[in-house]
């Protein structure tokens, strides 16, 4: 959070492929090899919900609100 704001950083669903390509995850997602870090569901371009980085590793989360909420607490943890 910046000093006076809670920032929610977002991307548009039309940018999913571009995002995955930039993160070198597109082929893995197409092959069904990526799983939600919270619920372990297989990630597809339809249910891709978000992404974060922790200890130099990229984690993907599905679009379930609970999983996104749990992902935020992982990001906020020191």
């Amino acid at each position, binding site marked *: *959070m910046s000093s*006076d*704001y*809670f*920032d*929610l950083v977002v991307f548009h669903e039309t940018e999913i492929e571009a995002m995955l390509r*930039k993160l070198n995850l597109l082929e893995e997602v197409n092959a069904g090899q990526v799983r939600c870090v919270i619920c372990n569901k297989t990630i597809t371009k339809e249910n891709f919900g*978000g992404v974060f*980085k922790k200890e130099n590793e990229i984690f993907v989360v599905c679009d379930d609100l*609970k999983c996104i909420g749990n992902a935020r607490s992982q990001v906020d943890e020191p």
Partner: protein
Amino acid sequence: MSHRMIPDQITSLLLSLFAGLGGVALVLFLTWIFFPERIEKWAILLHKLLAYVSEKHERRYIEKHIENGINSWRKRACKECDGVLPYEFKLKWANVDAVESELNEGKLIVKMKNHRNQSKNFALAVREYVPNTLIPKARRYVQPLIVDGIDHVVSKSILCDDTRALSYFADMSEGEFTSKPDLKKIVEELDTVHGQGKLTRMLLSEYNALSKLHPSNPSEEIHRETADFEKLVFNFVMKKPEEDVDLDFNRAHLQVAIVAVAKSSKLFTFGLEPYVSFVERMMREGIPKFYITAASGMIPHARQLCERAVKDLGLRKVNEDEYEGIYRQKRTKLYCACLKKAEASI
């Protein structure tokens, strides 16, 4: 008709047009000065209409609709309880080309759906915002189940004008209620407290004061105290006529008393004296903070009691509000004022 008249007619038409446009511009300008929220709402509507043909406007609509929905609720809540949501909400579009550097800043980047699914976007944003910004320094000192319950009730309140977003949020909550059955009961209690306007004005006001304990570790004792305080407020809100309930709470961290100006027979016979005596007695017992409450016809008497308490008992008014809420199952005018001893810290 002579040819000399045609330029005159055109000039006259152009002048009328400019006068008309100038009039419209003046109305818009005055509306912007005195009712800026209305201009913002119209702008959001315009972006929504243009969203079908322009991605730029679609993003502006998604962004401004959510920001307006959350921040307008936040502004009202902060008037009822100062500092309850200290952070304004801002939606930022990630630069996909530089997504790695955004992730390196430790950010969670989430998907926004097409504007036709804006209700889901709104529910997601509220679900992210509330648990991370509601009484941020004090929430760890409140019993976790109650904090979860308050997050639910506040989130529903923000979403209440968007029935689809509320429905989406409620569907998601059902799963949580299944895994935490006590949570459903707490949410029902807090819904009732919120309906009478006491969630922000009383419960969250007191809980927020616990931020003075930050950054010490929370204890079982403080969690129990906050749970007991929630019960006191709920029992007060559910109180039937002539029913006696505890109105004072004097523990290690929370010391408040509720003064309900309600019995017209008592007022008629004894005036304000019984209420003044109650406040004096509570002050002798060490309680520094009071909530004066009343409904409809009793409100003028409650205001008089506040003036007496300030003038004769050395209390000072922290907050005062007249509003509409549910009282004994009817929507009615309600009043709630917070007074505290002049030297007591918040």
